[in-house]
C-alpha cells in the first residue's frame, strides 16, 4: 500500500517533468554538446559534410587571429557597453521608481504606462526606428541639434565612435523601464512603518534612502541586475540592427554580433562555435562571482 503510493508519487513527478526534459534535451542539451564538437572541428561552408576534429585550433584562432577588429577590442567594447548600459538602466530606473512611488504623485498608472513604453515596443522596431532617427540628413536627432540648438549635425552611423554611441543611446532608452518596474515592485513591498519610525527619529530623506530603501530593495535588485547584465552583454538585436550588421566597416561590434557575423555571414562554423563557448565562459565566470558576492546581502529582513 505504502509502496504503491510512493511509486504513484514518483510516476506523477515523472509525468510533470518528463515532457519538458525531453524538449529541453532536444533543443538545449543536445545542441550544446553539438556546439562543443563543432568548436573543436574545422567545420565551415567549405567543410560542411567532410569536417573533422582538429582540437583547440579554433580557440587559439579566436585569441590570436589578427582580424580587424580583433577579439580583445571587441571584448573591451562589450564590457564598456555592458557597464554603461546597466549603470544607466539601474540609476534611471530606480530614480524614476522613487519619484513615482511618492504618495502625493497623482496619476501613477498613467505615468507608469508611458514610462514603460520603451520596453513594450518590440526591439526590432525600436532599433530600426532609432536607426532612422540617427540618419544624418533626415534623422530627428540631427534635426533637433541643428534646428533647436544650432549645432552641427553628427555623422552618427558612419564613424565608429559615434555609431557605438548611437547603439548605446538606443539601448539605454529601451532598458530603463525594466529596472523601473522591478524597483517599483520592490519599493511597494517595503513596510510603511519603517519610514514612520524613521520619521519619528527625525531621519532625513537621504538617511532613509541610504538606510531603509536601498538595503531593502537590494535583494530584489541584485538578481534583476545580474539578469540585466547578462541580457545586455548578449543583446544581439540592438547592435546588429542599429549599426546594420556592424557598420561602419565592422567597427561596431559586440562579441555577440561579432560571432553572429562570423557564423552566419562568413560561414565560419568552427570558429563561431569556439567563440560562442568563450563568450559563455566569460559570462558564467562573471555571474558566479557576482552572485557569490551578493549572497552576503540576501536575507536583510531576517
Amino acid at each position, binding site marked *: 500500500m505504502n509502496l504503491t503510493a510512493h511509486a504513484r*508519487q*514518483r510516476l*506523477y*513527478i515523472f509525468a*510533470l*517533468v518528463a*515532457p*519538458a*526534459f525531453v*524538449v*529541453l534535451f532536444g*533543443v*538545449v*542539451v543536445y*545542441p*550544446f554538446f*553539438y*556546439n562543443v564538437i563543432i568548436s573543436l572541428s574545422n*567545420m565551415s561552408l567549405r567543410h560542411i559534410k567532410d569536417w573533422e576534429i582538429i582540437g583547440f585550433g579554433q580557440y587559439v584562432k579566436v585569441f590570436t587571429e589578427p582580424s580587424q577588429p580583433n577579439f580583445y577590442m571587441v571584448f573591451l567594447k562589450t564590457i564598456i557597453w555592458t557597464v554603461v548600459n546597466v549603470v544607466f538602466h539601474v540609476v534611471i530606473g530606480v*530614480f*524614476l521608481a522613487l*519619484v513615482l512611488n*511618492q504618495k*502625493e*504623485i497623482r496619476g501613477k498608472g498613467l*505615468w507608469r504606462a*508611458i514610462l*514603460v*513604453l*520603451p520596453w*513594450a*515596443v518590440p526591439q526590432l*522596431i525600436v532599433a*530600426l*526606428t532609432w536607426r*532612422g*532617427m540617427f540618419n544624418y540628413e*533626415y534623422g*530627428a536627432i540631427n*534635426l533637433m541639434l541643428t534646428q533647436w540648438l544650432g549645432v552641427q549635425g553628427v555623422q552618427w552611423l558612419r564613424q565608429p565612435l559615434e555609431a557605438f554611441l548611437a547603439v548605446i543611446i538606443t539601448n539605454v*532608452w529601451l532598458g530603463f*523601464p525594466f529596472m523601473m518596474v522591478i524597483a*517599483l515592485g520592490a519599493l*511597494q513591498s517595503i513596510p510603511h512603518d519603517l519610514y514612520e519610525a524613521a520619521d519619528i527619529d527625525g531621519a532625513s530623506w537621504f538617511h532613509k534612502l541610504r538606510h531603509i530603501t536601498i538595503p531593502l530593495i537590494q*535583494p*530584489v535588485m541584485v538578481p*534583476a541586475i545580474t539578469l540585466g547584465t547578462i*541580457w545586455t552583454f*548578449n543583446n*544581439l538585436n540592438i547592435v546588429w540592427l542599429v549599426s546594420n550588421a556592424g557598420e561602419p566597416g565592422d567597427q561596431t561590434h559586440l562579441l*555577440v554580433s561579432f560571432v*553572429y557575423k562570423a*557564423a*552566419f555571414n562568413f560561414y565560419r*562554423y568552427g570558429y563561431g*562555435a569556439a567563440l*560562442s*563557448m568563450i*563568450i*559563455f565562459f566569460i559570462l558564467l565566470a562573471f555571474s558566479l562571482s557576482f552572485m557569490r558576492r551578493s549572497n552576503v546581502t540576501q536575507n536583510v529582513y531576517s
Partner: protein
Amino acid sequence: MVRGKSATTVRLIASYAVLVLFSIIALYPVLQILNISLRPADRLLSTSLELIPANATWDNYVKLFTERPFFTWLANSTFVAVVVTLTGVALASTTGYAFSRYSFVGKKVGMLSLLVTQMFPATMLLLPMYIMLVNLHLINTYLGIMITYSATALPFCIWQMKGYYDTIPVSVEEAGRIDGASQLQIFTRIILPLAAPALVITALFSFMSAWTEYVVAAQILQDTDLWTLPLGLKSFESNMGSEWGLYGAASVMVSIPVVILFLSLSRWLVSGLTLGSVKG
C-alpha cells in the same frame, strides 16, 4: 511647519518635471513611428520636426494591406507565436511545479542548467541548431523555427513559474488533500488558478518573443511565403528607402497588439517578475 510644506511643494514640482521629461523621452520615438506611417509619398524624407506630418494620409496602411502580403505574414506570425506560447506555458507550468514542490534526482542540476542557459550567447544554440535543421531538412519550415524559439523561451519560463509556485504556501495544498482532492486535482483546481499571474506573464513573454523575433527567423525562414511579420517589416526598412512609409505602417500594426497586451498586464508584471526573482 510652513517650511516643511514649501519644501514638499518644491519636491513635488521637481518630481512632476522629472516625470514629464522622461515621458517625453519615452514617447518621442513611439510618436516618430506613427509619424512615419502617416507620411505622404512625397514627404517620406522630411527635415521637419512636426509631430504629425503635413498632409498626413492613411495611404501607407492601404498600400500595406492591399499591395503587400501583410495578412499572410500576420497569419504566419500568429500561428508561430500561438504554438510557441501554448507549448511554453504547458511545459513550464508543469515542470515549474515539480521543481517547486518535489525533490527528485537531477533537480538541482536541472535548476542550475536552466539558469546557465541564460548565459548562452545567441549563436551558442542557434548555430548547432541551424546545422541540425539543415541536416534534418527543417530549414524553411515552421517546425524548425518553433523548435528554436522554444529553446530560447522555455528555460526562463520554467524558472519564472517555479519562483511563483514557491510563493504559494504548501498549506493550501494540504487543505485540498484533507478535502479528498487527488494530486492532479490539487494541481489543476487549486494551484494553477492561484498561479494565474505567473501563467499570464509566462504566456506574455513567450508570445512577445516569438511575435517580434527577427534575427533567428532571418536565418531559418528564407522563403518569402513563409515570412513572419518582423521579416516583412525589415524588408521595408532598407536604409530609409522608398518603402519607409510602409515600414512605419507595418511597425504600428506589429506593435499595437504587443503594447496593448503589455500595458494591460503591467500590473501583474510587477508581482510576477519580482516574486520570481526574489524567491528564485
